[in-house]
């Protein structure tokens, strides 16, 4: 196995074969393996592209559960090297946070704070 807890697709090892086309890969958005394979057949080559079209990884867990499986499906369908997959954009927050908590940061001083990569 790759490093425990890693969500970097670079850490993905051998592509897991799809258990079945109807298998739900993204549980938050109920996206099946077939739906993901379909957009890969249509040309998607990155986790972000698959996400934007199918919504896999766009739900409440933000891909923490399914990201490696989606990467595995891309690798499985294309034969691309898992290490060559473009890592997905990282978009804060890491976990769901109530809006009033994030709003509460208004007015805090200091240098400009930037998180993540888009």
């Amino acid at each position: 196995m790759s490093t425990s807890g890693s969500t970097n697709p670079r850490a993905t090892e051998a592509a897991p074969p799809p258990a079945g086309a109807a298998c739900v890969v993204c549980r938050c958005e109920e996206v099946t393996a077939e739906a993901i394979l379909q957009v890969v057949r249509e040309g998607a080559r990155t986790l972000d592209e698959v996400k934007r079209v199918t919504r896999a990884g766009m739900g409440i867990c933000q891909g923490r559960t399914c990201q490696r499986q989606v990467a595995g499906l891309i690798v499985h369908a294309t034969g691309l090297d898992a290490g060559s997959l473009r890592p997905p954009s990282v978009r804060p927050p890491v976990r769901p946070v109530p809006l009033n908590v994030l709003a509460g940061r208004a007015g805090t001083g200091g240098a400009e704070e930037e998180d993540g990569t888009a």
Partner: protein
Amino acid sequence: VRAADYVIIGGGITGAGLAYHLAADGADVVLLDRRGICSGATGATHTQIGMHNRMPGIQLDLAFYTIRILETLGAELDCDLEVNRTGNLMLLEHEAAFGWVEGRRETQRRAGIVSEFIPLAELRRREPWLGPRVIAAVLYPQSIRMNSMRICHAYLKAAAGRGARILATAPATAIRVEGGRVTGVETAEGFISARNVVNAAGAWAAEVGAMAGVSVPIRLNKGHVVVTERVPEVGVKMKGEVILHDEAGSPTGPGGGSSPASEAEVRYGVKFVFTQTDHGNCLIGRSGEEPSDTARRGVDRRAVAAILSRATSFMPWLAGVRCIRTFTGFRPYSPDGLPMLGPSSRVEGFIVAAGHGDKGVGWLCTSKILADHLTGRRPEIPIDPFLFSRMEARSIEQ
């Protein structure tokens, strides 16, 4: 890939639409993107056409033409594009602005924009999620929402079905110009010879222009949007304030303008804009910062805080809803606010499709207008005011 009639640089809504229209006309098309399809503004937007802030003129013509296209595009591309006439509520805070609003509605009505004034009691009944700050609203029922990423994907799928080749992670590294005309594009995957190169690079259009020695003037404005978890339907799916002091002829004196904004709200150019998607997630914006550059793509927590403190003051109900994601994007404005379409007058075969500002998706008709122009058809809306060459003429005068 060795050769093509057109190499399009940029896999956003504009480049994708052009790839589709040109391929449908029989051209051999290659589309390149650096970071994947929809990796720029097309993938970082509310994707709506709100009629509340439209006024008569050619910009409105582009919006209406886009709406007409969207009415049939899903069937044409055989894809659910999530196009919905959701309507849009313009939220009002001050009675002193009502007279100005009436005058504006009359001007809009003459241009074909329908609206309905919703007084306080009715608003409270229909929109219990709004806070006391809002005392009336105007509903613009023609406003639509769509899924820009699905549109982009559907365009490219249809283009590929007509022979276009999509290289979504192949950066253009150089544009070859010989004897005053383009001859092709160098990419990470080799040289592609082409007589026409289209710059549809959005926020990166100035960089791509420079590769061909063509100055493409782009002013970037960075925006943040906050995405929430799915929630039940909360009234009209799009709503937002109007910042009165930004509007011509509006009352800006005490009691007339928008409620005072905090220092952070001013610094980050915050304005309350709310959209609920078909899936139930809410998109909350917006901020706008200048000057900006594409190297600074990160999320600034203070901009997020400023957006949310203003949003929760308009819709207090949002306070307990959870944020699942935030994102940023760059609005690429032209100097005069109109898109820049068409051939360069300096480098033959170099074609620009850029400068859409915050309306790239709302002006997706521009790819049809430009494709018609390039293939010798008469565009439904005359291209003249949008021709890129106006920028080159201007720089000679200066």
